C-alpha cells in the first residue's frame, strides 16, 4: 500500500483532457508551492492558532485534491477537522503524517517535469 503512488496520474490526465503540458505545469506549480504550504501549517500549529491552522490544512487539501492524492486528502481532512475543534495536539500528530505524504507527492510530481 505505501508503495502505491499517491498521485492518480491517469485520473488527472483524464481531467486535463490528456494535456501533458498542463500536467507538467500543475506539477511544477505544486512543487514550488510546497515550502509555503508547510511553513504556513507549521507556523500556525506552533503559534497555537487553530483557525489559521485549519485554513492552512484546507489549502493543502485543495492542492492535493487536484492530483487525486486520496490518502493525503484523507489525512489532511482529519487534521483540518481537529483544528476546527480546537484539538491542536491531535492536529499536530496528524500533521506529521501529512507532511510526510506531502513530500512524497512532491517527489512523485517532480518526476513529471524533470524526467527526460
Amino acid at each position, binding site marked *: 500500500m505505501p508503495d502505491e503512488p499517491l498521485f492518480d496520474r491517469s485520473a488527472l490526465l483524464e*481531467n*486535463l*483532457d490528456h*494535456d501533458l503540458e*498542463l500536467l507538467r*505545469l*500543475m506539477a511544477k*506549480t*505544486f512543487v*514550488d*508551492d510546497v515550502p509555503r504550504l508547510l511553513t504556513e501549517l507549521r507556523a500556525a500549529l506552533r503559534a497555537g492558532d487553530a483557525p489559521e491552522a485549519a*485554513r492552512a490544512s*484546507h*489549502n493543502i487539501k*485543495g*492542492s492535493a*485534491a*487536484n*492530483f*487525486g492524492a486520496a490518502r493525503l486528502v484523507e489525512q489532511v481532512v482529519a487534521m483540518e477537522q481537529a483544528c476546527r475543534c480546537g484539538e491542536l495536539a491531535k492536529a499536530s500528530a496528524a500533521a506529521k503524517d501529512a507532511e510526510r505524504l506531502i513530500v512524497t507527492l512532491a517527489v512523485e510530481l517532480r518526476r513529471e517535469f524533470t524526467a527526460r
Partner: protein
Amino acid sequence: MSVVIVDDTPTTLELMRAFVFRLEGREPVTFTDPGSGLAWCLENDPDLIIVDYMMPNIDGLEFIRQIRREPRHDSLPILMVTADHEKNVRYAALNEGATDFLNKPVDRMEFLARAKNMLALRRTQQALAERASSLAEAVKRAVEEIHDREHETIVRLARAAECRDPETGAHILRMAHYAQLIAARLGLAPEFQEMLVRAAPMHDVGKLGTPDLILLKPGRHTPEEFEVMKQHTLIGYEILRESSSPVVQLAASIALRHHEKFDGTGYPRGLAGATIPIEGRIVAVADVFDALTSERPYKKAWTFEAAQVYLRENRGRHFDPLCVDAFLDVWERVLAISRRFRDEEESVSV
C-alpha cells in the same frame, strides 16, 4: 469576454486558468490575493468572476458582497468554488449574490459547461442592454425629429402669412426676439421664453383671411374696413387653436390677444390689465415697437428714440407698464437684435 479567477491555491488557479483559455481562447486575469482581485474587479469591467470560498482576509462571501455593492456589477455572473458538501456556505453565497457554484476538486467537464453557461448569460445581458440603449437613442432621435418638423411647420405657416403682407421676414424675427427679451427680463421660465420665440412669428397668421383690397390698401382704412382688418386676430386664433403642440397653443393665444390694450381699448374683446394673457401683453410691445421703427410703403421708419418715447407715453395705456419697463431696461440688447436682423435678410429661419 474578460474572465477573472481569484483563488489562493496556485495549482487550482493554474488548472482553472487553462480551462478558461480552452473555452475562450483568451487568458483570464488571475489573482491569488483576494484583496488585489477585488480591487481589480471594482476598477474594471469583467464579464465573469470565478472566486474561491476559503481565502485569507477576504473570503468568497465577503468578496461577492463587495462586488454586488458596486451597482455596475449587480448582474455580473459570479461562480463560487466550494466543496459540494458545504451546504451552509452555498446558501450564504446565494444570499450574497453568487450566480452558480463549481465543485472542488475542479472537474473539467463541469467547469467548461458552467463557465460557458455563465458567459452565454453575460452575452444575453449585454445584447439586451445594447438593445435597450439603442431603442432609447432611437426614441430620442424620433422626438427630436418631431420637434424639428413642428418648428418647420410653424415657420412655413408664418412665411405663408408673410406672403400676403408688406411686413418682412426680418420683422417677424425681430419682434419674436424682442418678445423673448421682455419675457427673460420679467423672469419668466427659460422654457416659456423658448416657446415664445417660436410662437410669436405666427401672430399675424390670420391675415391670410383678410381680403387683399383691405390688407394691401395704401393709406387709412375706413371704419368698416378696419372692422374687417380686426378679424385677423380671430381668424388666426381659429387657424391655430386646439393644437396638441404647446407652441402652437401659445401662438393661438398670441394671435388672439396681441392687439388688446392694457387700458381695455384694444380688440377683439377689449380686455384690460392682467386679464390679457402675459404673452399678449409682451407681444403687443414687441410688435408695435418694431412696426414703428420699420419703413413701410405708406410711412417712413421712426427713429429708435421716437419709438422709445411712444412706448413711455403709452405705458399703462396701450401697454403693460411692466413689459415697457422690461423692454427699456435691456435697451442695448434691443439695439443688438435690430442690428442682427436687418430688413435685407428675408429668410425666416430662426
